[in-house]
């Protein structure tokens, strides 16, 4: 039981890290980036190719993160421009459809060029015992990174001037503009940040198992579920929802069965929308 819950928390931190990049972009401009999972996969493929040349893992990971950030910025500077000229639901819908198109292009190109591409960051060493449960080192590393990212993000949005500027745009775009904040610049920075987060997800995800080239759609789906449950635009909400869903996932996978588990997770997302559309910690 203890082991199951601990596994759930590890999985949940991974979910949270996955969701936070999507939720930030949504909170800022109302765009659900359906290409998010594909950007994760892009980072993974880049990192694995760099690693194949014999480069150190850390350097390869940085390369993956940088390329993901670059891809996200490119997306923002090209496809998102017409999207941000729209308002309200029109904007969300157009953003949804355009990022869906981008997801196809990226997925198609990657699976065409690297049909067997996969990233696996192998962390060697004996399992470490945590409160009496042996945990794989890869899982511990991944969780530590997720926690560090959560802490950095919360400090960034809570304490720095730019972070507060971002929050002001989330709350009221027009108001933020009036006090001298440039929403379009803020959005580009946040898109870059979400790309960096996608790159980090690629690395941590591959610490406990290979991340294959066709995982993009599934990653997007889970990011979407976490985003919806946590509250659109909330960093703490994404991690809280991630951990809750992670624990539910492992509990039900352990006691009920895998297919039912996915349905339970999906049901949780649907229920959140119906009962509390703002999500756990949304405004």
């Amino acid at each position, binding site marked *: 039981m203890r082991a199951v819950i601990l596994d759930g928390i590890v999985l949940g931190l991974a979910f949270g890290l996955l969701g936070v990049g999507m939720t930030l972009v949504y909170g800022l401009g109302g765009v659900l980036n359906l290409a998010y999972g594909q950007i994760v996969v892009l980072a993974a493929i880049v990192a694995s190719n760099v690693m194949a040349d014999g480069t150190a893992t850390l350097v390869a990971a940085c390369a993956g993160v940088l390329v993901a950030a670059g891809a996200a910025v490119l997306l923002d500077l090209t496809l998102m421009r017409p999207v941000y000229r729209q308002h309200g639901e029109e904007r*969300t819908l157009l953003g949804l*459809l*355009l990022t869906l*198109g981008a997801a*196809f292009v990226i997925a198609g190109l990657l699976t065409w060029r690297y049909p067997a591409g996969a990233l696996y960051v192998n962390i060697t060493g004996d399992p470490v015992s945590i409160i009496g449960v042996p945990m794989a080192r890869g899982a511990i590393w991944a969780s530590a990174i997720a926690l560090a990212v959560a802490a950095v993000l919360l400090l960034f949005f809570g304490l720095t001037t730019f972070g507060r500027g971002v929050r002001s745009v989330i709350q009221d775009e027009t108001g933020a503009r009036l006090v001298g904040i440039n929403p379009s610049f803020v959005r580009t920075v946040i898109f870059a940040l979400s790309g960096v987060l996608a790159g980090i997800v690629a690395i941590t995800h591959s610490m406990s198992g290979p991340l294959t080239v066709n995982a993009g*759609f599934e990653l997007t789906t889970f990011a979407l579920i976490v985003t919806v449950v946590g509250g659109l635009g909330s960093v703490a909400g994404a991690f809280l929802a991630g951990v809750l869903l992670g624990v539910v996932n492992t509990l039900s996978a352990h006691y009920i069965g895998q*297919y039912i588990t996915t*349905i339970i997770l999906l049901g949780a997302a*649907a229920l959140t929308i*119906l009962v509390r559309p703002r999500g756990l910690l949304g405004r």
Partner: protein
Amino acid sequence: MRSARSLGWAALPIVVTAAVLAALPPIWFGDSPYTTSLAVQALVFAAYGVGFNLIFGSTNQLFLCVGALAGVGGYGAVILIDETSLPMSVGIVVGTLSAAIVGGLLSWIAVRRSLGIIFTGIVTLVFSLAFANLLLGQRELTGAETGLVVSAAADKLGDDQVGGYYMFACLLVVFLVIFRVLQLSHIGWAFRALRDDEVAAELAGVDVARYRIYAATIGSAMIGLAGALFAYSSGYVSPSTYSFDRVDVRVLVLVAFGGLGTLLGPVVGAGVFAILDERLTTSLELREVLYGVFVLAIFLFFRRGVVHAVVSLWKRISKPRGEKPTLQPSRE
């Protein structure tokens, strides 16, 4: 009262479509089973498209569960026949009704909780994924990835490809007639009102909730019927027959390409994409890239679709300038 002449104009696109569909096999692909099967697939997708168009194009409910609804129809029909050995037609009717009920329920939930386009999209997407998992999980009922062979279909529709083609062509024409009749009736006026401005429509006395549920129920019934008939005509169903990436994405793209909310949009879209599929014999991955580029191009430059573009061009040519616009439902 609408004049006979304007009714004739309203029926013209359907008559032309029916004539073209009837003429296609003898003049183009009568002897090629491969082309015929592509054409059948195009017709099925056009039929899905009409249903989706009724739900999304007419009443702004983003139903990302076309594949799942078709699957409810298809699997519902096949499993019922397999388990009870009732006649095929009963299975199809039950499958269609189940799809209609599921679609109506989804719409009822969305309306009751007043979900916007995006949340409706997410809830229906979640339903699609849950349905796919259910198909995989209920192994003894659905055969999971292996799928089910439709035993009742072997002697009926499976062999006769051109017959199957004509059956789906008839189905499509019937759907188009239903779509047009709805457009011209008071329901169509309500659809247009609530699509343009929901609040204004509500204030003008249009029961927005009720018309949304109508549209979703009728559209879902169409999708379910097409899905059930497709199961019988192909003689085999598997989760990928109705999967999100095989069905929904394609339906969304082809309806958007043809023109959302237009009568012939789905038909034009399905036709163009069938031709693309036939010409593009490259790898599956490159086809996916091309789909993506298509989606991007459509929504960046061409947002109202082919049918809108053609109709507005036609209006510009046929109408002298300065003439007052007449108050009429759109003919698009």
